[in-house]
């Protein structure tokens, strides 16, 4: 027992994940391989999925959209992250906040914003028509362009926030060194900055791709029938057809795609980059790729130096210098603007969501605060989010504490397990939990929601606490022990007070994760246990109305306030 010591702290988290994450996912797999009637092993569901034209097409669309989204988010996000990384530390915080807020803003609010922006009579068409740029309204809603705008917008913050720590970590001293070695700026960028940021780019690509694979909110609300994605199919198979095995098979295919991508990524870069650490030693298998990569990079560098020279002659050095900040400004505007459009809409006095609002009033807030349905959903979301945050901080915090000091050879595996809910598409987790909760009688209960949301929030609390622990001075714990403190007292009087900032941040992140979640809520909540996102989703599918704008404003303001608080606490104490 004594030798196991710190590793014991990880046990509750491991047990929790085993029951509410691994087991349901495995059960889903078993379900997909079984004939419902006879219970025998069968591949029929997979054959059915891969042998039916509609399903194959949806698979193709899903991968295409996920890939396009990944490319779009990386291309738009990279220069922004690069610009952010080079800002002085003090100023960077504010601009990073402009990415953090859209990151944590609910997908529903973001999608709702695009619905009213891109609509035929929406903000964008009004502005373009009014400015005389176009003669007829553009039809972007309910088409691939609309989906892509919504998806890239939704995934961009994730991409930027994943790349940023790696870039900050490597940018600090190296480029200056390269400059003094005589490399021209173009060369410095490709051979040093870009090369060193690759693990971050890959991590961002991985997370965006996997998250996109399981997406349904954006394609359902912004796309047309031709943009149906796999997750939508899974949902309709379960909620409309009650076809569990087939839904299971579809989910398993999605999971397989996600796992294969992750596996390839791990071979090349190592999983630790996902949690925001620059990877240390090069990994196996990187050598062959390295040679190819370096050749490509030098090619790119040569091209850029040439283009740079021509451009400098054409437009002058000063204009070129503004290119990066200008890009950053445009992308930040793209991230923030749609949400800002929602705010005036919430205050409209009209019955419709026209822009600009003909007049302003608080009537839709009055509707919201006067509606038992909305308020009930809000209160329930709060209660569930609070429970989730408590549970996730305790489980994730202890796990991080345990793994920070563990020298066990299982450490890597445990680390991966705690990050896994981030890598398995949410819809897969949600479906698995739905099946499990149906057996346990937890469907449509707050407890079920808390358990499900805790699975989703665990990676965030784990990573947040692990990050503050990296700078933690363990000798303080040792000192307390030699001064006579028992293990429990060391934890309560030394470790926890010193980690307070990280714990508060982890709590708030978990809170927001739960407060925003629709995927688990879609299956597990319902009827009298509707959560706020579920209520919004039901309304958005049925009919857009100004109450939704008012609710979005409330959610947006709330989440932003929580987030700013979390950020202030995240700085380590002492």
């Amino acid at each position, binding site marked *: 027992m004594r030798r196991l010591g710190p590793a014991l702290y990880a046990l509750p988290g491991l047990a929790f994940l085993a029951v509410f994450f691994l087991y349901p996912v495995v059960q889903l797999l078993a379900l997909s391989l079984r004939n419902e009637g006879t219970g025998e092993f069968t591949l029929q569901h997979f054959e059915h999925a891969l042998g039916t034209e509609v399903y194959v097409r949806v698979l193709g669309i899903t991968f295409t959209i996920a890939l396009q989204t990944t490319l779009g988010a990386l291309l738009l996000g990279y220069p922004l992250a690069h610009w952010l990384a080079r800002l002085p530390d003090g100023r960077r915080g504010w601009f990073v906040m402009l990415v953090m807020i859209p990151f944590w803003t609910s997908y529903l609010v973001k999608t709702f914003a695009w619905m009213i922006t891109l609509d035929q009579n929406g903000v964008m068409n009004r502005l373009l028509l009014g400015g005389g740029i176009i003669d007829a309204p553009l039809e972007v809603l309910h088409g691939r362009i609309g989906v892509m705008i919504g998806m890239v917008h939704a995934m961009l913050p994730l991409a930027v926030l994943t790349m940023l720590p790696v870039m900050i970590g490597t940018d600090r001293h190296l480029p200056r060194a390269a400059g003094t070695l005589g490399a021209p700026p173009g060369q410095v960028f490709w051979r040093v900055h870009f090369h060193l940021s690759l693990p971050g780019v890959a991590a961002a690509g991985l997370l965006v791709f996997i998250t996109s694979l399981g997406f349904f909110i954006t394609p359902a609300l912004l796309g047309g029938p031709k943009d149906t994605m796999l997750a939508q199919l899974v949902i309709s198979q379960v909620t409309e057809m009650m076809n569990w095995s087939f839904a299971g098979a579809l989910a398993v295919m999605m999971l397989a795609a996600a796992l294969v991508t992750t596996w390839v990524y791990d071979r090349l870069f190592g999983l630790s980059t996902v949690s925001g650490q620059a990877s240390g030693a090069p990994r196996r298998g990187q050598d062959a790729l390295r040679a190819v990569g370096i050749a490509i990079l030098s090619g790119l560098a040569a091209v850029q130096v040439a283009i740079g020279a021509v451009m400098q002659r054409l437009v002058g050095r000063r204009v070129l210098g503004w290119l990066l900040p200008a890009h950053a400004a445009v992308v930040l505007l793209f991230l923030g603007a749609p949400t800002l459009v929602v705010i005036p809409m919430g205050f409209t006095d009209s019955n419709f969501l026209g822009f600009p609002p003909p007049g302003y009033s608080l009537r839709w807030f009055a509707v919201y605060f006067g509606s038992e349905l909305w308020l009930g959903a809000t209160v329930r979301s709060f209660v569930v989010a609070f429970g989730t945050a408590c549970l996730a901080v305790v489980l994730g915090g202890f796990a991080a504490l345990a793994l920070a000091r563990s020298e066990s050879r299982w450490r890597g595996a445990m680390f991966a397990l705690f990050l896994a809910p981030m890598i398995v598409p949410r819809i897969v987790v949600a479906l698995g939990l739905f099946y499990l909760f149906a057996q346990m009688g937890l469907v449509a209960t707050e407890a079920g929601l808390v358990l499900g949301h805790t699975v989703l929030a665990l990676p965030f609390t784990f990573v947040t606490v692990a990050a503050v622990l990296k700078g933690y*001075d363990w000798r303080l714990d040792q000192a307390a022990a*030699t001064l006579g403190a028992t293990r429990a007292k060391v934890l309560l*009087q030394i470790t926890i007070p*010193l980690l307070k900032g990280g714990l508060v941040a982890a709590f708030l992140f978990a809170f927001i994760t739960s407060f925003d979640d629709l995927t688990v809520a879609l299956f597990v909540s319902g009827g009298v246990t509707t959560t706020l996102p579920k209520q919004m989703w039901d309304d958005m599918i049925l009919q857009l109305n100004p109450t939704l704008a008012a609710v979005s404003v409330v959610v947006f303001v709330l989440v932003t306030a929580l987030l700013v608080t979390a950020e202030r606490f995240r700085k380590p104490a*002492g």
Partner: protein
Amino acid sequence: MERQSGGGLGAVQRLGAPLSQAKLRIDGIAKRYGPVVALEPVSLEVRTGELMTILGPSGSGKTTLLQVICGLVEPDGGRLFIDGHDRTAMPVHQRDIGLVFQNYALFPHLTVGENIGFPLKMRGRPAAEVRERVAAALAMVQLGHLAARFPRELSGGQQQRVALARCFVYQPAIILMDEPLGALDRQLREHMQIEIKKLHRETGATIVYVTHDQEEALALSDRICLMNHARIEQVGTPQEIYAHPRTTFTASFIGTSTLLRGVVEGDALVTPLGRFALPEGRLAGAAALVIRPEHLRLGAGENTIEGVVSETVYAGAETRLLFDLADGTTAVLRLPTGMAAPEIGTAVQAHWATDAAVLVPL
């Protein structure tokens, strides 16, 4: 040292009573970190009320030994006795041992007063007593006016005193200090050495003090335990170790000396530089003569060596003369005060009295 802990002590253990006044007895304690041997089996006794320094170069296992004593590191083998009782498996917080860390390890979220009061609170002392003893401890290290400050608002020397006060305040029977003055500048270090000696005298605590600074060890210790390569080289009073080094490592680590290597033949040491008479003590085979600088005199005598002056080092109270011998070793002698140093490059002779040298095995 290692051979000392034979079966006899096991018999003592069975009687259940401490044989000597040994406060702390380490019996064959060993520790490895994977392939790295941090401690070979070592044995050591620390007497009640003494200040013993553990001296050794970096990586010799000093910190590991301290951590085993206070229970932060579990040894792979061997046993640890405090007051004659086996404490090898006792948890850290029950051991009644104080540890002063190299970088103080003050709790940054607690004030100076709260830091010092921490061990008393952990022992459930009543609030009034805590206040009283904290005040007394602060007065002892002359920091009474800083009780309300946080550690980051103190200078390095002040932080160090808080760490000392936090350790002395609960009067542990044994106090371990791991290079407590390592981060301080020379002047402050010497001042703090005096304070530690004073605290030691006033409290009568048994102190084990780790350092890699031989001057500090000589200045502070009742006894020195010299470590090298995860082993104990020699234990003794500073005078003993200085005057009677048992290995060439001891001779060169504590103070400076001239080493003449050769082979023992009869009653002489045969070296490339000639035959030299042996002092007392019998050894066979390869050995070396250790001669301290103050025992070497210029000119020919009983045992004479010749060399060429390579350097003179002026060190305030004395001047040292370095000269190269024919076999490539450098000899060191202390010039008598007031004597002019010979020019660099001149040939010199030096001699010593046979019994002033020490014979050590190679």
